[in-house]
C-alpha cells in the first residue's frame, strides 16, 4: 500500500508546503500550456464564426422550433414541446431565459438570463436547447416551425 509509482514518475525532492505543490513538474506545465493554447485558438475561432446580429434559436433535438431576435420590441413567451413536456422560454430586455420546464432537476430554470452571442441554455432531460447565435444581415421579426 502507498508504494505505487509509475516507472517514469517524477522523483524530485518533495516540497513540504502545500503551495509549493502547485508548481507541478515541467511535463505538467508543458501540458497546461498546450491545453491553454488549444482552448484559446478554439475560443477565437468560435468568436469569429459567431459575429453578427444576435438571434435566439430554440431546438428540440435536431428540430429547430423557432428563431427570434434577442432584443424584441415586446417580450416573447415561447412554449417548446420537449420529451417530458413544455419548457417555457422568455425573451425580453434582459435576454433569454427558461422560466419553467417539465424536468425534475430544474437546473435549466436556475441558469438565469443569457444575453451574449455564444451563450446557451439547455434542458437535457427535456432535450431543449436555446442558443444565441450571430447572423449577419437578416432583418427578422420571428420565424417558427
Amino acid at each position, binding site marked *: 500500500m*502507498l508504494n505505487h509509482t509509475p516507472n517514469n514518475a517524477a522523483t524530485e525532492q518533495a516540497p513540504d508546503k502545500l503551495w509549493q505543490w502547485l508548481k507541478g513538474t515541467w*511535463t505538467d506545465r508543458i501540458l*497546461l500550456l498546450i491545453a491553454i493554447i488549444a482552448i484559446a485558438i478554439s475560443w477565437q475561432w468560435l468568436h469569429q464564426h459567431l459575429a453578427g446580429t444576435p438571434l435566439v434559436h430554440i431546438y428540440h*433535438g435536431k428540430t429547430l422550433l423557432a428563431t427570434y431576435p434577442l432584443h424584441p420590441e415586446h417580450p416573447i413567451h415561447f412554449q417548446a414541446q420537449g420529451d417530458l413536456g413544455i419548457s417555457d422560454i422568455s425573451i425580453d430586455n434582459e435576454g433569454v431565459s427558461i422560466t419553467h420546464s417539465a424536468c425534475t432537476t430544474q437546473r435549466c430554470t436556475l441558469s438565469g438570463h443569457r444575453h451574449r452571442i455564444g451563450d446557451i441554455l439547455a434542458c*437535457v432531460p427535456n432535450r431543449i436547447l436555446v442558443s444565441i447565435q450571430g447572423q449577419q444581415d437578416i432583418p427578422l421579426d420571428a420565424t417558427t416551425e
Partner: protein
Amino acid sequence: MSKTSNMPPRPSLASLQAHAYWLGLLVLASGLQIFEASMPSLGPWFKLGLANIITLIALASLGPKAACTLAIGRVIIGSFFMGTIFTPTFIISLSATLAAISVMLLAWYLIPRISLIGISLLAALTHMCMQFFVVEHLFIQQSALYYLLPPLLVLSCATGWLNGALAEYITTQLKARNR
C-alpha cells in the same frame, strides 16, 4: 481429510489492509460526490471534481486497477444515493468518468515525468469534453452546444491543476506517515 485443508488460503494481512484502504477511499469518494452535488454550483455543466482527488490518491497508492474500480464504483454509489441512477445525468457522468480514467491510465503509463497534477489536468479536460460529446450525441443533438465548451475548459484547467496538487500533497503526506 482434515477440516482445515478444504478451506481457502487466508489472505495476507497486507492484502486485507489494501482492501480496507480501498473501501475507505470508495466511501470517501462517494461521500464527496454527494456533497459536491448538494453544493451550489457555478453552472449546470461545471463541478469542482473533488471526488477525483480520491481517485488520484488511489492511483498513486493502490495502482491503476484500484483507481479504475474506485472511479466507476463512486459514480454508481453516488448516483444511487442522489436518486439519479440510470437517468441522463448518470449516463453523462459514467461515460465522462470512463473516458477520464482511460486518459489518466494512459498518461500514467506513457507520459514521462508526469505527476498527479498533469494527470488530473488531462482527466478534467477529458471529463468536460466527454460530457459535451455525450450530451450532444445522445440528448441535445445540436453542435451549438460546443459554444459553451472553451470557457468551461479554462475552468477545468484550474480545477484539474488544484485537485492534482491536493492529491499529490495528500499522497506524499500519507507516504511519509507510513514510513
